[in-house]
């Protein structure tokens, strides 16, 4: 056997080994003597601090905004088409991934906007997902968490939610936004809109985002999409097993000819089913609430959501008592502002 054959065989190892070490950051060698001295000093200092101030356990953690990585331009924060994020999955936006890629320090903390796509309320997301993450968060006030890359990689989500992580933009001011207001109907008006309502005249039209409640069962949608696509759960299991058995070359062909087309068909059906459902829901909402003639930016086909609808204060308060409305917020078209619009 020749060394060349072995080197060729190493060349044929699985992608997972290649990807595992594709980016090895340079480590500095530790000089243990000063490190040990520093550790001793730290221990002594900590002991003195604990002795003089009592235990610090139980204090609320805070984060310095200037030490956090924020989205700097519109592309960083641009929301892509997240319609096909499945429950139980977390999608990292391109902007956030790029920020991860640009980072050279594993200790970098990123400001991450959390978007939930199944329509669960923020309180549910907070109670069942955010609260136990073990990262600093301002989810209920700003919709954000703060985490390192490693922390993000370790985050798992239950089948209850479909999550998108985006790189968040730094709030224009670092003081807390106006308090959110929750109506007896359960509809929440976000602080930003509360502030605008306080300043607006009675006949002024405010651009608003309306999130409508829906009772879509994504598991049923998935089943229907698979049925329409002609793909069974057994088929998916079979695909998964095949990818373990096949060689890399065979796997590429199998992925291209069998797996990808099957998933494409399911995705197409899922988007069609949800699109039809949300379109019907959103348009039905506009008709039922007598807002068909109102000016609006867009009616989403990916979410139960109407964007940029222009309403008076009276109309907003009326909608807030409608149990169909989950929440409302002031609509800021950041893309238009960026283009001078």
């Amino acid at each position, binding site marked *: *056997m*020749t*060394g*060349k*054959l*072995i*080197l*060729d*065989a*190493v*060349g*044929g*190892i*699985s*992608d997972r*080994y*290649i*990807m*595992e*070490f*594709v*980016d*090895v*950051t*340079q*480590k*500095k*060698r*530790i000089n243990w003597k000063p490190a040990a001295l520093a550790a001793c000093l730290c221990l002594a200092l900590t002991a003195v601090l604990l002795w003089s101030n009592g235990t610090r356990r139980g204090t609320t953690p805070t984060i310095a905004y200037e030490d956090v990585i924020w989205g700097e331009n519109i592309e960083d924060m641009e929301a892509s088409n997240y319609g096909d994020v499945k429950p139980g999955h977390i999608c990292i936006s*391109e902007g956030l*991934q790029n920020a991860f890629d640009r980072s050279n320090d594993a200790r970098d903390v990123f400001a991450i906007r959390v978007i939930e796509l199944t329509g669960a309320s923020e309180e549910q997301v907070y109670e069942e997902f955010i609260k136990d993450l073990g990262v600093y968060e301002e989810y209920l006030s700003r919709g954000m968490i703060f985490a390192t890359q490693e922390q993000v990689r370790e985050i798992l989500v239950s089948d209850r939610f479909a999550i998108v992580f985006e790189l968040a933009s730094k709030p224009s001011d670092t003081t807390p936004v106006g308090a959110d207001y929750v109506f007896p109907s359960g509809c929440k008006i976000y602080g930003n809109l509360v502030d605008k309502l306080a300043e607006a005249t009675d006949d002024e039209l405010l651009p608003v985002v309306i999130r409508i409640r829906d009772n879509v069962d994504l598991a049923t949608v998935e089943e229907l999409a698979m049925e329409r696509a002609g793909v069974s759960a057994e088929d998916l299991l079979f695909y998964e097993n095949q990818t373990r058995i096949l*060689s890399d070359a065979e796997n*590429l062909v199998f*992925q*291209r000819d069998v797996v*990808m087309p099957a998933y494409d068909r399911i995705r197409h059906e899922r988007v069609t089913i949800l699109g039809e459902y949300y379109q019907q829901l959103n348009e039905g909402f506009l008709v039922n609430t007598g807002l068909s003639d109102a000016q609006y930016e867009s009616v989403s086909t990916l979410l139960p959501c109407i964007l940029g609808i222009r309403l008076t204060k009276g109309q907003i308060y009326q909608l807030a008592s409608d149990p169909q409305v989950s929440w409302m917020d002031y609509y800021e078209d950041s893309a238009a502002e960026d283009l001078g619009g």
Partner: protein
Amino acid sequence: MDDNAIIELFFERSENAIVELSAKYGLICIRTAENITFNKEDAQECVNDAYLGVWNAIPPARPKPLLSYVLRIVRNVSINRVQHNNALKRRSGYQECLDELEAELTSSETPETVYDAKLLSGYIEEFLDGLSRTDRLLFVRRYWYLDSFGELAAATGLRQGTVRTRLTRLRQRLKQHLFNQGVHV
């Protein structure tokens, strides 16, 4: 731009596909090629050839992950270039690694056997799975990426001498592992 979007550009036969691929993975491709060829100009040419290879392969291929697919092509093209250069007696990282493996793992006493490279790859993967992360890093970065000892020392925080020693032990362990699988080296 994410990998899927780049692949879509290849499917559309848009020349931006190469531009985006180069923007995203150009540096690591160049570095991998340089590790093998020991020559900047050769490395650049190899990477360009690899891009052409990717252009010809996608479509129909839809590789996932894209990076390892491109790196494999870069590696293969670069090794071919080195083999061509060897005829001209030019030294390369590939030749260095080859010498190491020849010295440690091959024996003139055993009859020459034709082994299936795929089978061997499987045995090497088993061997890698049994290693600590640092040892696996050393092995993969040395014999797949063909990193120098200096680069490995920088990546692991070990001294160069320690890196050499650990790699020697790893080659001996690989030899034993292959022997246990019935592969006589």
